[in-house]
Structure formats: C-alpha cells, structure tokens
C-alpha cells in the first residue's frame, strides 16, 4: 500500500517534471515564431528551459529509482550466485541513498544561501533563483527519501532471504519480465493502429 502510494507520487512528480520541459518547448516555439514574424521579440525561453531541465530532471530521479533505471555496469555482480548478488543489489540501492543524502545537504546549502541573499538571475526576467532551486532541492530530497525507503525494504527482504523480492526492488530490469513487457507494448501499439 505504502509502496503503491510512494510510487504514484514519484510518477506524478516525474510527469510534472516532463510537463515543465514540454511547456518550455512550447514557450520556445512560440518565442521563435514571434521572433520570425518580428511582431514581438522576447527572449525568456532559454533561461526558463534551463530551470525546467534542472528541476524536471531532479523530479524524475525518484521515478527512475522505482523503474530501476539508474544504470549500472554490473559486469561482475550479475555473474555471482543469487545471495551475494542480492547483497550487491541492496548495496547499489544504498549507494544511491547515500549520494542522494549528501547531494540534498549540499543543494540545501545552495538554496538557503540563495534565499538569504535573495539572489536573482541577472537578466531581464530577474528570476528569484530561490524558486527553481527550491523545487530542485525538493526533487533531490524526495529522491533520497525514496532511495532510502527502497534500501530499507530491500534490506529487510534480504534478511528474510526473500531474494525474489530483492530482485524486484533493487536489481536491474531482468531479461525475462522486460522481454514480455516489450512484446505486450508492441502488440498494443499494433492493435491500436489497426
């Protein structure tokens, strides 16, 4: 239940992040068209889309954890027997939580400084940078929380020797289930077409 809720929140955040990038793309397209017609010229798309990139990416980090898509070069660990492999899967998830935690602390310092100094971008837009940076920190913080939560549940599963559960939570998407998923996906697209 908790997992479903957290997964759902992460998915919504990731979609909002993607929505920001999509909105930035639409804004830039409008800006370029207006510039071409020389009716009104304004230039805010480049700046806003760079914030959309930082915030949107950060807001997708947690979703990427649920999707097990933070890529690994598991050339060695995948050749291990199931138990040590499960151990390294948990360790991999834990490393994301640790890095996320350190990143959150550092990003928070950056955000707090921006807030204290009331920093604005030195452009016509004069964006108060605390806004995009605040959203950015929130994304990284949520990512850290999710990585920690996934580490805890995977570690608990490891302790109960429920290796299938560890794999489900922390291993890279495996060959079997993904293959069938892709086939389903392709079939549904074909059907939609005909």
């Amino acid at each position, binding site marked *: 239940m908790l997992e479903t809720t957290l997964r759902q929140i992460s998915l919504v955040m990731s979609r909002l992040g993607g929505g920001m990038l999509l909105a930035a*793309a639409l804004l830039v397209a409008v800006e370029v068209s207006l510039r071409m017609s020389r009716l009104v010229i304004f230039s805010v798309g480049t700046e806003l889309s760079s914030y959309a990139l930082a915030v949107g990416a950060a807001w997708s980090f947690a979703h990427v954890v649920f999707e097990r898509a933070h890529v690994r070069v598991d050339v060695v660990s995948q050749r291990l027997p199931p138990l040590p492999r499960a151990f390294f899967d948990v360790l991999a998830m834990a490393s994301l939580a640790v890095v996320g935690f350190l990143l959150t602390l550092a990003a928070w310092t950056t955000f707090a400084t921006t807030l204290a100094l009331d920093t604005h971008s030195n452009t016509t837009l004069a964006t108060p940078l605390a806004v995009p940076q605040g959203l950015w920190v929130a994304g990284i913080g949520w990512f850290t929380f999710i990585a920690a939560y996934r580490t805890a549940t995977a570690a608990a599963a490891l302790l109960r020797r429920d290796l299938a559960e560890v794999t489900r939570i922390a291993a890279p998407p495996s060959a079997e289930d993904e293959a069938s998923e892709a086939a389903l996906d392709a079939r549904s697209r074909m059907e939609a077409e005909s």
Partner: protein
Amino acid sequence: MIPVAIGLLFLFLAIGLPVAAALALLGLGLDQIFSPVDLRLAMGELGWVSSSNALLVSVPLFILLGEILLRSGIADRLYDAMSRWLSWLPGGLMHANIGASMAFAATSGSSVATAATISVVGAPMVERYGYGERLFFGSIAAGGTLGILIPPSINLIIFGWLTETSVPKLYLAGFLPGLVLGTGFSLTILLVCLLRPAIGGHRIAVDWGERWRSLWGLLPPFAIFVIVIGSIYAGIATPTESASLGVVAALVLAALHRRLTVPMILAALDGTMRSTGMIMLIVMTAWFLNFVLAALGLISAMNGAIAGMDLGPTGLILSVIALYLVLGMFMDPLAMMIVTVPIIAPLVKDAGFDPVWFGILIVLLCETALVTPPIGMNLFVVQGVRRRGTIDDVMIGVAPFVLCLIAMIGLLLVFPQIALWLPSALSD
C-alpha cells in the same frame, strides 16, 4: 593518485553501484584521501550549475521528440518502410539505424540525444524482425556518436572556442568524415552479418506495391527533419531552440495521425523522464568528479606531463591519441576536451598540424570515448532505453564499431584531406 582513482572506480562499478553513485563516491573518496578541503559542499553549487546548463536542454527534448514519434506510430511506419527496402541487405534495419542516426545527427548537436532518439524508435524492432540484440543496439550506440561529428555539434563549438578555430570551418570539415564514418559503420554491419548471418534479422517477402506504399511512412519524419534543420540553417532558431520546434512538429503530426491523446503524452513523458533522470544524475556527478580531480591538481599535473615531453610531430599525435583513448574510457568527452585541449592544441599547432583537422580528430576521439567501457554515456543511454539483459551486451555489440572508429582515426591521419578538402574548396 591515478592508480587509486582508477582502482576505486573499477571496484565501485564492478560491485554494481549505479554509475552516478560510483562517480560521486569516487569524487568524495579521493577528496577524503588526498585533500584537506571538504568538497562535499561544492556538490550543491556544481550540481545546480551543471544541471541548469542551457546547452543540455536539447537532450531531453530530442528524446521526447523520439518518444512522440514512437507512440504515435510514426516511427513504426518509418521502420516498416525501411525494412521493406533494406531487408535484402545483410544487416537489414541496422543500416536504417545508421542512416537514421546520420539524419538525426544533422539536426542535433549532441551524440547522447541522437543515440537516445534512435534507440527509443529502433528498440521495438529487434524482436519484431528477429535481430541479434547485441549488434543491433551496438549499431545504435555507435551511430549516435555521429551526432557530434556531423554539424551542428556542441563539441565542435567548444573546440572552436577553446582553440580560437573557426566554427563554420569546423562544421564544414565535419561533414565529409561524418558521411565516411556512417558508411564505415554500415560496412561494419555488413561484414559482421556476412560472418554471422543469424543475427541479421529475417527478410520480408518483397511486394513492390507494398514497398512503394510504405514510402508514405518516410514523409512525417522527413517533415520534422526539414523543420528542425531548416530552422537552423534559415537562421530562425539556434540548434538548442530547434529541438523545441521539433517537439511541436511531432505533436502536430501525432495529432494529424489522430494519436495525440493524454495517455499517449503521459507515456511519452514517462519514457523521456526515465532517460533524462538517469542521464542528468550522471552529468551532475561527472562534473563533480571532474571538479575534484582538477581541485586536487591532477589535471594540471597531467597537462604538465604532456607539455613536458619532447616528441616529434608523429610521436605527439600518436601519444595524444593514446591519451584520449585511455582518458576516454573513464571521462565524459566534453569534460575531457575542456581540461586537455587548451594545453594540447597549441603543441599540435606548433608541430605543424592544421587546427581544423585536429578538431575533427578530437571529435572522433570523443565519439570513441562515448562507446568505450566502463564509462560510456551512449552505452548507458542505449541500455537505459533497452531495459533488459545487461549492459555487457551493448558493450560487446559496439566493439566492432569501436574498431571502425579507430580505423577512421587512422584514415584521417593518412588522408587529412577527408576533413580539410571541403572547407578549403568552399573558402576563397
């Protein structure tokens, strides 16, 4: 320090830590071992600066463009047409991967974006047409690298800025090597498939009526191509802005195909953000690691060592190539260029080499770096989209193309005209 750094990185990767975590922990670890300063705090500033970089915005947008094409059925029709025309060739659709990469490279300045787009569009074809996965995904990872050789190119722009070389000339110089390398990749596929016919996919019965009709499937992608590249060359948009126009064009086409629905958009956003989140976390941690290495003085020591060696022209070029092949295994190509080119380019110029030619050489080495393990962004991107099996499949599949890249580098050494002919022919 170098053995410790490489040793730690191999350890972290071998035990299967996510690449982003491995890079960040390596940076923090080196800092703890070698430096009294606490660089942990710098992660905030560097993270923000590297992830809000306007030049990188086109990467997720091109991925989104590919997702929309995929989910509106446009990509399926494109590959369907190509399969009807190309399936008689050993390697079939893999040549389409290369061709599509070359076309996309002409609209995008980034290899990562090119690889991501083509893998999103091409990945579903592996099963449908029964290709050997390794070579198929290897061809996408390799084809994607053309993104920085065929203009526009972020790397050529940065090279031009670092070395005071003409960007328009560099663009002209990249064009022909891009065509030659693309052809080389195709020949590589042909060769491998002749040796191992099983991985070449099934052939499709030829029906000329179907063939001609299938050509309509090429029209929508071609329209997007014209809009993106046309907007750049007509001076309507910068390469970064053109990605936005491409996304809008793709949305319009999806609407014309009656496939522009909320679930479709959400699915496209989900796919886009899964790749974008993975890529951007690596970008952030890679810049942090680079900062640590530079702050520890490693980079200036390395640059000093190269400048200190007294080599002849040939020796210099060969050692530069060796250096980039090794650094390229571990570093992000853009970071690698920025920290080494300002020192090395003047030496190369003094040794009598044309800076424009050297720029193309460096870009070829950057392309190689994108596909050599253990750290190769194109490998990660392709594996991220593929989402099954393990990354060694992609690493093995790309190996023949790495050989092709090295052969291309050799070709450029022997025949510098490949790069220099077009810029000299078109300037007075």
